[in-house]
């Protein structure tokens, strides 16, 4: 039976996935897939913690490595006879050149272009006339997919084929954190299901009986005000429902703060907060900052976010952010356990806007520092 767990940031997806994998009766017939190397490392460690001491282990693989090794490589001869597949190319396809045939998917050396690997995989499945899926069915009882919101374009079609196979597919995703894409240049589904809207596709699959969706809205990471802020950022057009925090405030410096960008240095020193920014940190005179998107998966007590122009505008006027910015901002905010400081150009204006209880901010309590 296939299922998808749609969980808020901080629910504990990795933990839950590791527990489920550890319960599998035949771990050697279990595959865990995720897009980024960071997640592969994290999943491997977490699963190993749960299963230490046993001899048989599930294998954790990158989504693209899986496509290459288990589908494209075995059946490429049926699709493009005589072409030797080497690996994954570091540079992506240049669609402006309008490459055709195999050249659309593979470099001259036989390396697959990352963005179109999903389509190549799908074509390989089709030209094998079902053999590729049969092969997978013989190899695996269940496939777990972590951070599935990263799967985009034709990778989603490949996922659909897996859902239709006899393999049990267990998907973990948070569409609100759709900041990465496995298929940057692939136009498939891009318009209809951008970023968090990918949930609509999963709901269609649920409608067709391909999987069951479960929503997990409890955060074990962030205190209530932070959860509330994250909900406002996402909005409720997609019907994810409100996040519920079960974290007790620690009793000092909890909640949401507004500071001026000029006070960044002082704030970081005073509260030991982790700086999340889109630009290089040197600009703010701090040596250690992290990109919003790269912060995915990590947890910090205190976080300070250097807001971008559009974010500050959103904070002051409620003007909608681009879908991708919504996701990045959501990721950044949900890293924090106890406090989130928003560094802005004009702290007073932002503060006035948020304090206005008639705005989208409702009763969100914030403090203006310095």
């Amino acid at each position, binding site marked *: 039976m296939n299922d998808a767990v749609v969980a808020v940031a901080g629910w504990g997806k990795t933990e839950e996935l590791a527990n489920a994998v550890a319960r599998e009766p035949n771990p050697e017939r279990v595959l865990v897939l995720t897009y980024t190397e960071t997640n592969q490392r994290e999943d491997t460690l977490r699963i190993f913690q749960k299963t230490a001491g046993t001899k048989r282990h599930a294998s954790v693989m990158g989504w693209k490595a899986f496509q290459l*090794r*288990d589908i494209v*490589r*075995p059946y490429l*001869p049926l699709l493009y006879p005589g072409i030797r597949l080497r690996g994954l190319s570091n540079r992506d396809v240049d669609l402006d050149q309008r490459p055709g045939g195999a050249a659309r998917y593979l470099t001259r050396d036989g390396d697959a272009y990352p963005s179109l690997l999903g389509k190549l995989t799908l074509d390989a499945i089709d030209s*094998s006339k079902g053999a590729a899926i*049969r*092969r997978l069915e013989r190899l695996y009882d269940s496939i777990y997919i972590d951070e599935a919101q990263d799967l985009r374009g034709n990778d989603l079609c490949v996922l659909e084929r897996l859902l239709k196979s006899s393999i049990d597919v267990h998907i973990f995703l948070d569409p609100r954190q759709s900041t990465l894409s496995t298929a940057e240049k692939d136009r498939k589904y891009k318009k209809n299901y951008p970023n968090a809207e990918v949930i609509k596709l999963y709901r269609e699959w649920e409608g067709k009986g391909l999987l069951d969706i479960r929503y997990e809205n409890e955060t074990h990471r962030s205190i209530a005000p932070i959860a509330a802020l994250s909900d406002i950022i996402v909005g409720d057009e997609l019907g994810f429902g409100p996040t519920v925090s079960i974290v007790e405030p620690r009793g000092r410096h909890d909640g949401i703060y507004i500071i001026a960008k000029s006070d960044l240095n002082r704030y970081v020193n005073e509260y030991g907060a982790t700086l999340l920014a889109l630009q290089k940190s040197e600009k703010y005179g701090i040596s250690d900052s992290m990109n919003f998107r790269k912060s995915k998966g990590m947890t910090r007590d205190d976080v300070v976010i250097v807001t971008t122009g559009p974010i500050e505008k959103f904070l002051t006027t409620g003007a909608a952010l681009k879908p991708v910015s919504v996701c990045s901002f959501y990721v950044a905010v949900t890293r924090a356990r106890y406090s989130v400081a928003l560094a802005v150009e004009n702290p007073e204006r932002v503060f006035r806007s948020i304090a206005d209880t008639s705005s989208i901010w409702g009763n969100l309590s914030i403090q203006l520092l310095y």
Partner: protein
Amino acid sequence: MIRELRVSGFRILKDFVWEPKEGLNILVGANSAGKSTVLDAIELVTRGSIRGQGARRSLSPDWFNKDIVDAFFQELGGPLEGMNVPEIKIVAVFSEDWRLARITGANDPDKKFKDAPGIYITYSVSPNLLPQFLEECRSIEEAGGPFVLPTDYYDCSWHIFQGDPIVRRPNGVSCTRIDTMPEPRSRAVDAYTKSYVGEELDDDKKFEVASRFRQVYAQVDRDILAGITVNCSGRGDLGLQIDRSPRTDWTNSIVLHRDGLPLYALGSAEQTLTKCAVSLENADSESILLLEEPECHLSYSWLNDLVGVIADAASEDRQIFVTTHSPFVLNRLGLDSLSVMAEGNSPRRISDLSDDTVRYFKRLSGYDTLRIALADRAVLVEGPTDELVFDWAFRKARGKLPHEKGIDVIECGTSHKRLLELAAALEKSGIAALRDNDGDDPDYWAGLAESHLSKDRAFFCGTPEEGKTIEPQMVEANRDKLKTLASIVRKRGNSTDKLEEFMTNNKTEWALRLLEADMSESEVLDIPSYILNAINFIDPAPESAENE
């Protein structure tokens, strides 16, 4: 199990395809027909090694097919395009099996299978070394030979049908070769002993053994070796001590013994049987077992034991390949497992042998079924008399004995039908069966074997009017030369009185005299017509001879 084996360019196997069956496969053929090369090919492709040595390092120039190598050196002067650089390729395709899903795919180098589990190994010159390789070959050619390929330019690559190169044997594929040659140490037995020791001794015991070994080493070092200095010509003196490297680890010093005799000191028969039993014990049940000429180094009764062990081990999952020259092994293991090969050609597998006939030869395992399997042309006769008379008749008609023209005369009692069935199952052509009519019409006897007869396999019997057995037939054929016949077949005198009775009572004897008699005398006699017909069938006379 291996469903198809393809070998090209490997020794005598120039272009070889074989579909072995599940369970047991018995490979027979003349010497140098390529039987062991088939086993070598299976070992190489499934293990990536041969006789314990890695495939890469094992390559030797004589592995390449000689015809291909010679042709290559001949073409060297010509244009580079289309040059056939000698290569070796061995492909094993397995039957569909979920346990082999990982090695399943469409990467069959010959593009024959679109979705099958398989492995292949190739030896070829890497493209970037090709110019130097050709240069080197040209200089060999200019020097006038010997035409030996410089193998150091060759790359060995081992792949699965999924497409990945592999360095280790894939899960689910295993192959064990049982050597019947007596040898000082068998790797399989050593490994088995080691793992047995590992399981039998608990950690404390192991520490104790290791500790005692160390004590003995230390004692020998201290008490004996310490007193010896090794002069090292001006570079300072060296001392002696016992080697403590893993090579001399105590687990390597433990061997199997029977009544105090280590296995390697036992007779080769016991060695072979133990090795075979150990390999079967160890091998995964889905493994491939290779066994070369088990009859060598084994006496009859041991062989009987071994054959029993092999027959029991064959199963749906375990594929066994046996080469043999022994009809006993062949009959006991079951003729239905037979594949016949000749000169590197793809073997012919037996098909459609009735269970009844398989059982018949299993029980009467003395029959020389191998001869019929290997013969180019064969004549089946009842007994020694018939064989001797046929030899005589053939020599008279063709000037040579049958075996000199590659015709095997096989005595088979009255089992013509069984052997004809075997010949038919092997699609043998050129088989003549001769038998006494025993008072019945020849058509009756031919009718019994009819389903196994063809234009290339025929039955020959004398007519009842000319006599029931070969003696009256011979007398009838020489009605007008009875004196000559009598003088040849009788020890003394040439009385034609009761000649037929005498011959019948002295069966082999008269026939031997006929064959050994002076040819100028014996060839005056006439050949019974059914024998002559058989000769003309098995060895059609050239037209010129016909006209004489």
